[in-house]
């Protein structure tokens, strides 16, 4: 079985394994030498996410994608996104805050949603003044995950879609539950005054 997808998936798989070897060696050097190489590890993980997102983009463009939905503790998911991004943003002088008021386990694709939020925070970080905020709450039976910044906001609405936003929109739509379908909303002038990325999942 050697479809184009198999070739791509196996390439991404091997590359991520190599990246993991690099990251483990950096982590080991940090521990051994008492130094901080968080930015190097961040670059490695960002490269791996970019590879995964490329594969995800190929999936959704071929219309063959199905989300891998499992019950997820939303607070845990937010913690992981903060862990992935906080230190890097701090190095750029930006504070990342997070608030999660969702207690119930929620059915969603943990890895895709984590990647979407990571990507949204990376985008927000590029335009923020000094603050990016991640928020998770329930609204009328929807799980609403949002990322806001205090930058100038999107120059045009809708903004031009790169791979990240295109994948995010398609994958949000693949989350379907009780006849409701997930969606992505982008707007300006929310709480922090800048851009707002909002993922609504049923």
């Amino acid at each position: 079985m050697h479809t184009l997808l198999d070739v791509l998936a196996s390439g991404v798989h091997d590359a991520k394994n190599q990246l993991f070897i690099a990251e483990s060696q950096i982590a080991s050097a940090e521990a051994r030498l008492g130094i901080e190489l968080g930015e190097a590890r961040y670059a490695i993980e960002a490269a791996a996410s970019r590879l995964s997102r490329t594969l995800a983009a190929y999936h959704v463009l071929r219309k063959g994608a199905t989300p891998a939905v499992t019950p997820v503790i939303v607070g845990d998911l937010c913690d992981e996104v903060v862990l992935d991004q906080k230190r890097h943003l701090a190095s750029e002088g930006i504070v990342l805050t997070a608030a999660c008021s969702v207690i119930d386990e929620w059915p969603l694709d943990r890895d895709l949603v984590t990647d979407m939020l990571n990507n949204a925070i990376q985008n927000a970080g590029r335009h923020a003044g000094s603050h990016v905020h991640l928020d998770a709450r329930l609204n009328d039976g929807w799980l609403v995950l949002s990322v806001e910044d205090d930058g100038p906001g999107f120059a045009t609405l809708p903004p031009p879609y790169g791979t990240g936003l295109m994948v995010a929109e398609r994958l949000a739509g693949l989350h379907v539950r009780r006849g409701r379908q997930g969606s992505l909303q982008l707007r300006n002038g929310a709480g922090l005054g800048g851009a707002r990325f909002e993922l609504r999942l049923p």
Partner: protein
Amino acid sequence: MSLYVQKRFLVIDDQPQAREALRTIAQTIGAFAVEFASNYQDALYRIRNNTPDVILCDYVLGDGRSGQQLLEELRRFNLLPDECIFMMVTGEQSYEQVVSAVELVPDDYIIKPFSPDKLILRLDRIMAKKEFFKDYYREKRSQEYANALAILEQKQASEAGRSYRFEILRQQAEVKLISGDAEGAETAYRAILDNYEFPWARAGVARSLHRQNKLSEARAEIERVVADTPQFFDAADLKANICMAQGEAEEAQRVLDEVAQKTPRNYQRKRLLAEAATLNGDADTARNVLADVIANDTMPGAVTPADRLALARSQVDAKDLVSAEKTLVGLKESEVQNLDLDAQASYAALLAISSPGRGKPRFAGLRPALMSAELSAASRLDVLRSALNLGDHELADHQAEALLEGEEAKKSFGAMRKHYALHGREMDFRNIQKQVALKRIRHDTPSS
């Protein structure tokens, strides 16, 4: 970090560099004792002999094996205590699809590359979850199912339980199913489906319906799962079991053959394939598959006398009586003495066919028991064919009647009819069928 200093880690990966990377990460979070396993057998051996606290297992193990298969085998042989953490490590996005579909999942999985901090976060959570369910696990393990369910109910009502609401429902369903409350299990699985269409919950509904012998309903449910999630191999096994119960051995064999080709080293599946082939009259396939199982299922204690009986059965089916005799005689007398009545009945019946000199006296000795005891459908079929062979009509007809009255009537019907036809007794078989049907009508109609 100090939390993991005293934990014993086992890293399972067939690639040396990846293994080293996992060890490095484990050491970075403080782990002092990190063992390696480079392949499937090695991993099993180490886990059996000295269960680690934390297992980090790569999904791809090489040699046609996967971490998922290892996990299934460990659960099957009860080698994973509840306290032990099993974490799948994967660079493959495809494993997410497996985890979202199947019933048997690891404590968690983590995608490469990941930082030591992320591993700690994940392990901490698993420990918190195990702590939350600790009292429940204890009751479940000691088979105190009523207590286990009562504990789950308390947890469900608690604030902390909201973070585990699906897991609680899932555990409720599983406990109900193992404790024999198939109807309750069905209700619990449907409650999960009301929330989200999880393939494993839909399969749970099918399993519960199968236990209630509602075969066409069970079939309809499992067909949905198999069509939507082809990566959910256990669903195919369940479909095959339901097909067999419905008397559709041919379809069962087709489904299993397809999946077995994708999982060539899953010997439980191969056993099931052999059963379907046997019922389907495909003795050659059954014989080859069972020979493969007996030669290659290297898990200690995995190959049982039941496998040898199944092989002998397929050899008898293939009219290879010499090999059948060899297979049966290969079982030690002490082993045979320790078999349960079902297996003893099959042993004596198959031996009486393949080696009349040795088998007939043994079979005759068991006859009084065979006329009165409850037996499994497979053993009844063996006894039936042996009795037909020996011209013992009374014994054969008794088994036929019991089979037709039992819950597995459809499953064994084709084979029964074939054996009666072989001995020119089609009419007699039809008469037994009629009597059983009449008895059922009389039983169902209130007497006037």
